[in-house]
């Protein structure tokens, strides 16, 4: 049986009135004392937040975007770096005899 829209509305209204009804939960003065004791045990608060305070909330929100930008820029940088020529340079030194490669480097004939 599918619950009709109006029936569901009715159930929600009954739920709402039950939800709003006062629950019998008593909290004594001992609770207040416990809260104050816990607060007194905490380290002192800094007086006020600095000028950057309004932006602090955005730091974590912007973190994923910052990480994505970092990865994209790293990829671009990696592609633009000329690793091949450095490898070739290394190979010249490894594969060629020492005196030959020194002559080439120093430009001697």
């Amino acid at each position, binding site marked *: *049986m599918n619950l009709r829209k109006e029936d569901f509305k009715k159930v929600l209204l*009954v739920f709402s009135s039950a939800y709003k009804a006062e629950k019998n939960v008593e*909290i004594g003065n001992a*609770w*207040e004392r*416990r*809260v104050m004791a816990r607060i*007194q045990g905490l380290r002192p608060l800094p007086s*006020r*937040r600095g000028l950057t305070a309004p932006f602090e909330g955005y730091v974590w929100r912007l973190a994923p975007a910052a990480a994505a930008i970092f990865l994209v820029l790293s990829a671009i940088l990696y592609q633009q770096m000329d690793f091949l020529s450095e490898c070739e340079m290394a190979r010249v030194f490894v594969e060629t005899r020492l005196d030959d490669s020194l002559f080439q480097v120093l430009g001697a004939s």
Partner: protein
Amino acid sequence: MAGNITAIDGDIHDETYAGMLDAPKDSEIVRRILQGEVNAFGLLLDRYKAHALTMIKRRIPPKDVEDIAQEVFVRAYQSLPGFDPDSHFNKWLSIIAVRTCCDYWRKAYRTREFPMTSLSERHAEWLEGVISSASTDSADGNARQEEAREFLAWALEHLSAEDRMVVEMVYLEGMTGREAAELLGWSVANVKVRAFRSRARLRKLLSGLLEREEEE
């Protein structure tokens, strides 16, 4: 007269006119606390205890109300350096209370610390009774309301912590999407989408229960 003053200075509620004249403003108390007068927090605690408890009692099982209320005030104290003296303390505290309740349910769902509510035949009968009754005043007597509360607890346990908060605020308390979004720190669109999905989920849940009842 007191009503006029409450409207101008939204910080203070339920105080007599004379008491309001003597009572320091919330922003003044916050300033004193930040200057090192930690005991001044007792004034805020005393002033807003009832407000916070009303919010928490609705959302949290009775056995955990005390602990969560304590957590709300400790978080409020730790967040005092970020409190805007031009804003209303009760509204600010409400945000902390709602988010603490949301954290409570997230943790509870993760660890499954709370006992799952089970439904009996009388709950199914109750649901059928509500559907077939002409008016919504079917919560006749405490027993019926108790059944409604148990049924609601069972239904809410099938939602995520976030969906649960949205359902409570929008459908059970009657808040607007904007009000709920402000308290939860979400966008209005997010609240609306979650509210729509959770409502559909609840309806499906109740429909499934009625179907099972019919089969039996």
